[in-house]
């Protein structure tokens, strides 16, 4: 199956193309530290570049997979709008993929994921920086992220640092924590026994090759139902609800 996948949930723009013969080509853009994400300007050039190198067009694809987050709202919308547009134009099946699940899968499959190869981590915790001092996090038993039939140990959620600590402490084993949020909340996570790969480990980065693997086993979803996993209401809605709650 030929699958085009991309993810714009983090500052990175990650793209992958699985050609059905087992080969997966990837391309990515990571902004300089502190620079704006390049989702709008990078995504389609990277996509068209990969297709060009493979010598195929959109019409030769079997599926499109898109990372639906959680992550940055504007980034997610650029990715999902692009995926929906391509899918609509070419009538291609569309598969939404959890960015957290894809992160966990990458770690599960990396040979160097465990510090101790004799005793690999039993749990993988994917954490993304949710801004506002919060984290988006989810956890799977090692190996479970690859199987859509297996439920996560921790459902994806937006968590305060305190709630994150409590959620990690409640896991059946100390996890391997990965993702930009694992670095952002390193102190809190280490305090509850999580192990975190070095700052420059590729495990912290979203790799769309994982989306390709997941999209091969996940069912496509009706196009209009593919939306970002925001996991958080707009600020204006939160403010309104707070105001309503304070009213006598």
């Amino acid at each position: 199956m030929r699958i085009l996948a991309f993810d714009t949930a983090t500052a990175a723009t990650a793209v992958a193309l699985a050609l059905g013969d087992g080969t997966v080509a990837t391309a990515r853009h990571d902004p300089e530290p502190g620079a704006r994400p390049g989702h709008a300007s990078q995504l389609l050039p990277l996509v068209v570049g990969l297709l060009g190198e493979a010598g195929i067009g959109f019409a030769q694809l079997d599926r499109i997979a898109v990372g639906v987050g959680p992550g940055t709202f504007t980034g997610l919308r650029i990715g999902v709008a692009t995926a929906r547009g391509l899918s609509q134009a070419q009538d291609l099946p569309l598969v939404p993929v959890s960015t957290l699940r894809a992160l966990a899968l990458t770690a599960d499959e990396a040979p160097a994921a465990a510090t101790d190869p004799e005793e690999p981590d039993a749990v993988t915790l994917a954490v993304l920086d949710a801004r506002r001092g919060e984290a988006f996090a989810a956890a799977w038993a090692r190996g479970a992220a690859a199987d859509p039939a297996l439920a996560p140990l921790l459902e994806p959620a937006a968590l305060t640092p305190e709630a994150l600590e409590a959620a990690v402490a409640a896991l059946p084993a100390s996890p391997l924590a990965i993702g930009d949020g694992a670095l952002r909340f390193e102190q809190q996570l280490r305090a509850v026994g999580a192990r975190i790969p070095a700052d420059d480990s590729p495990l912290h980065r979203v790799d769309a090759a994982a989306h390709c693997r997941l999209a091969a086993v996940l069912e496509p979803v009706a196009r209009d139902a593919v939306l970002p996993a925001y996991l958080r209401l707009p600020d204006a809605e939160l403010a309104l609800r707070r105001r309503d709650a304070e009213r006598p």
Partner: protein
Amino acid sequence: MILALETSCDDTCAAVVTADGVIRSNVISSQGVHDRYGGVVPEVASRHHLELTGAVVEDALARAGTTLGEVDAIAVTQGPGLVGALLVGVATAKALAAAYALPLVPVDHLHGHVAASFLAPDPLEPPFLILIASGGHTLLARVNDHGWSEGSIELLGRTLDDAAGEAFDKGARLLGLGYPGGAALERLARDGDPHAFAFPSGAKVPRLDVSFSGLKTALLYKVRDLGEEEADRRRADLAASFQHAIVETLARRVEQALAREGGGSGSRSERLSIGGGVAANGPLRERLAQLVPDLHVPARELCTDNAAMIASAARYVAPLPFPSYLGLDAYATGERAL
């Protein structure tokens, strides 16, 4: 045939327009979800655009009796507007165009409002004057030709603070009419005396610019002076006088522009077009029709934000061939001189 998308504010729009400016379809999905917040919330608008764009595009193609494979180019509003909202349209348009290696035409939203006057069956040929007044913009300009390059459109005046539609909405809020209140204020004003109260109509503002912030403050003070009971009793008079001040502010500038432009040959002074949501206001139309017998008023659905006007503008902009537009970004504020 051009398929256009417009998502700069809170209307999700798609349209199909022919090269001759014939509207084959013009679909507008007004989100109507912002009333509870008392204004358009960018994040809420962006979420809704993403939900609606696919269906709106499909609807526009179906109503036009065509398919993506048959359109010649895709146009999209690039800016100015809410950047998160614009990006949904830009990403969608780029993807649709890339899938068929179609050319893409990025359009400035204000060029779109001008180009609404170029649409069939009653196109207005430049040169003419145009007043664009909405919740997002208020400007008076001379349209020299159909394009959007240097010299195509000359800005004569603009608001120094609030847009005219914003002034209507703020006035409506002060009178307890909710949001968006422009239409409600106009309705209430029908039963009032426009000369009951003298509100400032920006005579001191230099050149052909306008200002509405003083007007809003004047209404606030007037309501306070009258006291709750009296202000409530005279709401219709307050609404009528407030509306009158906005109409006069705009009409005077148009009058001055006409006099100035008409100084020479006189030929270009006779035609005026209007656009933007405030162009739907009855008293404004009546007042301007007195000034210009040949007032050009596009249909209401072409005055408020729509994609047919974006497609119309795209007919006069050089299209970007595939793949040169793949990295195209949106812009929030006016990046050109206008």
